[in-house]
């Protein structure tokens, strides 16, 4: 049998960490991983954040990001151990034999240079093609990847094309030098779900047509199932399970893999609307200062006590703007907001302390929503002082109660945010908002920055707390799985309008409007061949129209 293209043996990777209050020290983040990749095959590396998947991907280019260093093992590419070769040889490998597609093309393209210059650069520098040949290849790749106007798009600057288009340009950049291996590092994670599907298909076809091998890194098992031949599941730097895609998806052996496959198994019984909604938004139109057009058009929704209204939409749909209007940060141009039976002032300055207390908010980025110099106890205690004037032992007792409610407990009271995990940080933010005893909480993408299993835990907690405290949630998200898991009613937003609104069962049952149909059918499903089915179905439909 011939030598595999990429052979990794006993790969160990270390990093220097700077924990607060301690001396910097070295830790091991990947503890000896083995795998092979044959020419033309696709291996999916899957795991949660901190699993070491990106680090392993970059190790195949002998690259360590930041303070990351490869500390042991062998990485064989095309028959030589690249950890033992010269820097000059590694430069020839990077951008020549192995190329890289990053998560955020928007950040990975140099804003000061034209797309074409960047796409052909590696191929020309590595002397694989002349500039003219490379440009021809690039144009052919642009066309293959379904970019509009493939002959001209290279003349544009990165900011002049959309995020989805730029991600395809990044794929063209990686394929242009005719590499043997491409490392795709979460290439569709930052995209909207309806955009993701096209980019995913473009990447898959490009891989098939060029016969290139690929490492496909993602945290989304449903996505990796569509593109890879084999899957390796990683957890905290260790390999958990490694096998063919079909086996991993349909017959996972290890408990952790089974948990990943069955994630989002929350059952939530839809509640009936009550006669008195806690929040009534009527005919809201709003625009940002200096803009000549509305970003919200005539939005009307109700939220009932103790229930969850999910506001779902893609980036730019106006869902976060709606939250800003409700909180008073952006006074609406037209329309009214009624809350707990009274009319709310349009802007923040006109609202009473009671208004502020009863309407709380939780954010996507728990890190930046907390003061890093305050302890968990201070953070949660602040609303207790501010709204209820609590002091001393009484305050501490209530803080501990809240910590127990979020399943963390007293031992966290003196910790700083930097000492908490992502999920714990979000729990503290939840406790802080609950401390005000609100009638309603706006949750703005609160699980989007979290790993699936952790996000599941947060959703379960939110549902449990809802039962106890009878608090209503306005849940803003782009993730339809989350919507299905927790909502009682749903508002689908598109370009600043509510295009579909009703109870969960109504909104998620046919007949659908075009946009909701597109949105629902774009959510990756965890089964082989799903991608092809959807794409074929869409082609048929567009041919039928």
């Amino acid at each position: 049998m011939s030598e595999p293209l990429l052979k990794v043996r006993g790969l160990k990777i270390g990093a220097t960490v700077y924990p607060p209050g301690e001396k910097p020290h070295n830790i091991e983040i990947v503890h000896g991983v083995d795998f092979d990749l044959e020419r033309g095959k696709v291996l999916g590396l899957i795991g949660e954040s901190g699993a070491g998947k990106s680090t392993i991907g970059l190790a195949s280019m002998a690259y360590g990001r930041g303070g990351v260093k490869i500390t042991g093992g062998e990485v064989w590419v095309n028959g030589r151990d690249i950890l033992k070769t010269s820097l000059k040889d590694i430069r020839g490998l990077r951008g020549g034999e192995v190329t890289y597609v990053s998560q955020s093309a928007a950040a990975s393209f140099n804003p000061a240079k034209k797309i074409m210059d960047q796409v052909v650069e590696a191929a020309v520098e590595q002397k694989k093609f002349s500039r003219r040949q490379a440009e021809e290849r690039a144009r052919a790749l642009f066309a293959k990847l379904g970019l509009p106007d493939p002959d001209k798009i290279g003349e544009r600057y990165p900011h002049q094309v959309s995020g989805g288009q730029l991600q395809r340009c990044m794929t063209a950049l990686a394929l242009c030098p005719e590499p043997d291996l491409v490392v795709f590092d979460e290439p569709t994670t930052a995209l909207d779900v309806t955009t993701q599907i096209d980019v995913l298909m473009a990447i898959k076809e490009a891989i098939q047509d060029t016969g290139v091998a690929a490492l496909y890194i993602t945290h989304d098992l449903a996505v990796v199932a569509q593109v890879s031949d084999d899957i390796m599941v990683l957890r905290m730097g260790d390999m958990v399970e490694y096998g063919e895609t079909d086996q991993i998806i349909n017959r996972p052996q290890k408990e952790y893999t089974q948990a990943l496959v069955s994630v989002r198994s929350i059952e939530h019984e839809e509640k009936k609307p009550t006669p008195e909604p806690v929040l009534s938004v009527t005919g809201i139109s709003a625009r940002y200062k200096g803009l000549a057009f509305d970003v919200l058009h005539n939005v009307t929704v109700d939220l009932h006590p103790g229930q969850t209204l999910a506001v779902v939409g893609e980036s730019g749909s106006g869902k976060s703007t709606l939250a800003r209007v409700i909180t008073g940060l952006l006074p609406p141009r037209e329309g009214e907001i009624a809350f707990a039976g009274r009319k709310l002032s349009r802007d923040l300055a006109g609202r009473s302390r009671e208004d502020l207390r009863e309407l709380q908010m939780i954010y996507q980025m728990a890190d930046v929503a907390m003061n890093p110099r305050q302890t968990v106890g201070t953070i949660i205690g602040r609303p207790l002082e501010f709204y209820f004037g609590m002091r001393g032992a009484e305050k501490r007792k209530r803080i501990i109660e809240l910590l127990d409610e979020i399943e963390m407990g007293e031992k966290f009271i003196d910790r700083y945010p930097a000492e908490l995990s992502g999920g714990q940080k979000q729990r503290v933010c939840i406790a802080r908002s609950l401390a005000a005893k609100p009638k309603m909480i706006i949750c703005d993408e609160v699980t989007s920055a979290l790993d699936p299993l952790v996000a599941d835990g947060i959703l379960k907690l939110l549902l449990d707390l809802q039962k106890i405290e009878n608090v209503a949630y306005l849940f803003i998200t782009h993730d339809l799985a989350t919507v299905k898991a927790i909502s009682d009613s749903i508002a689908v937003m598109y370009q600043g309008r509510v295009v579909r609104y009703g109870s969960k069962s109504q909104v998620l049952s046919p007949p659908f409007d075009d946009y909701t149909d597109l949105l629902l059918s774009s959510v990756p499903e965890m089964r082989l061949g799903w991608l092809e089915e959807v794409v074929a179905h869409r082609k048929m439909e567009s041919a039928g129209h």
Partner: protein
Amino acid sequence: MHPIVKLVSQRFALGLLLLFGASAMIFGLTEALPGDAAQAVLGQSATPESLANLREEMGLDRPALTRYFEWLGGILQGDLGQSLTNKLDIAESIGNRLGNTLFLAFWAAIVSVPLAIFLGLLAVRYRNRWPDKLISAVTLTTISIPEFLIGYVLVYFVAVKLGMFSPLAMINDSMSLGQKLNAIALPVIVLTMVVLAHMMRMTRAAILNVMQSAYIETAELKGLTNFTIIYRHALPNAIAPIVNVVMLNLAYLVVGVVVVEVVFVYPGMGQYLVDHVTKRDVPVVLACGVIFAAIYIGLNMLADIVAILANPRLRHPK
């Protein structure tokens, strides 16, 4: 309208407004000083009558605002007024000297700006290694030593001991370019040493800042060499802060060279200004002040405009 045109014309208008404000301030401050031109001319021999006569003759008895606008109107027509001490037309006297100052500043810039940027790039390339530390140490030393000291030391060792270059930087119109350059070699070296550190360190900092970006990683993963990455991918994105500090230093080369001009007896604006300040020749001081302000504001405006032009988002809108 193209957003660039709008932004640039805004900057331009702002620059003019600023210059107007600066002229008012310069005029106002000299007004606020005790004594006036008439007193300066008459000196010790002044009697109240002769002062009043002279003030009337010079128009100093009219309101300050009227005189300000007359003065400003004159400047706009190229009339900077007349020197009190030698009765010469100021515009004419300054013309030649300003040319000399700009000549010196130009050659100092030609040497120092590329050198500073190159040393900045080099420092980034060998960050925290000995070339970086050496560059930092040497440039910091040269900026820390007073420029007149460097000037005299150079005069003594280079000009006197080694016999290279002229110790006096006297130039006149009859000299050829080569002779002129030979004459100003020492002041150019001194000025370069003074402005180098600031520009070099800003270049280093601006580029290091850009080096954190994800697109630098992309460049590294293309297998480019470090220096290619720095000048091809990092430098174009660090233009704005670098140009800003370069312009500040160019302005310094014009308006801050007084000491160096005195040390090398160079017939530039600085010498001229110092001479007339000691003689309390207010019209000359006013004229020099406005010209310096104009150069300072002009160069900074240019830096702003370059920063706008360097931004691809503004240059190529969606």
